[in-house]
């Protein structure tokens, strides 16, 4: 099993450009999450999904959109990138909330110029 994978690993964008980050998991997990990690601020939840076809806002959702069309995939979109979105983005998944252990992907490092 590959676990949780993320593409791309690294990306540089210009302000105003758009992009989509892809997260895939092969563990048949129901719950998936997108976090951003900034120095000194830990992990902050952007959006999450409790199942295929469902999404919900987390702590810092502004400027991001998500979709969960397939159970194994969770996409994070930036419609118009801003320098404040420079960060490391982690995707995570968990089987169901009762188990609650989250498995993280390797991360995507995004630089917005």
């Amino acid at each position, binding site marked *: 099993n590959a676990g949780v994978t993320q593409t791309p690993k690294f990306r540089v964008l210009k302000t105003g450009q758009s992009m989509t980050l892809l997260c895939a998991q092969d563990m048949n997990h129901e*719950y998936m999450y997108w976090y951003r990690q900034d120095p000194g601020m830990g992990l902050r939840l952007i959006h999450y999904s409790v199942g295929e076809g469902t999404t919900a806002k987390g702590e810092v959702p502004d400027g991001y959109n998500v979709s969960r069309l397939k159970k194994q995939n969770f996409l994070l979109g930036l419609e118009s990138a801003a320098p404040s979105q420079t960060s490391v983005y982690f995707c995570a998944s968990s089987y169901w909330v009762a188990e609650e252990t*989250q498995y993280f992907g390797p991360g995507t490092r995004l630089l917005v110029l």
Partner: protein
Amino acid sequence: GQQVMQIPQYQHVQEGEDFTTYCNSSTTLSNIQWYKQRPGGHPVFLIQLVKSGEVKKQKRLTFQFGEAKKNSSLHITATQTTDVGTYFCAGHGSNDYKLSFGAGTTVTVRA
């Protein structure tokens, strides 16, 4: 909203010494989890505590969950260079899908 705070933010430890990092929540938690992130890596689950006053050990690591389920601690004995990284605590509030993370304690070890 729920806030989880960790202290200290940085911990510089001499190899072989012990240290403790603390986690405090503004609200009662249903559980507390601890994760470790190596430099350049991703967070990896270490352990989960659920019961009030629970204590769990993993080799040189001892985890505690407070009686009021609002605080937790991680104690590492005889620190080794392999302990380098950032340790995060995270907790679920009651009936909450979301895991709230602390800002982490970054540990460096002097050989």
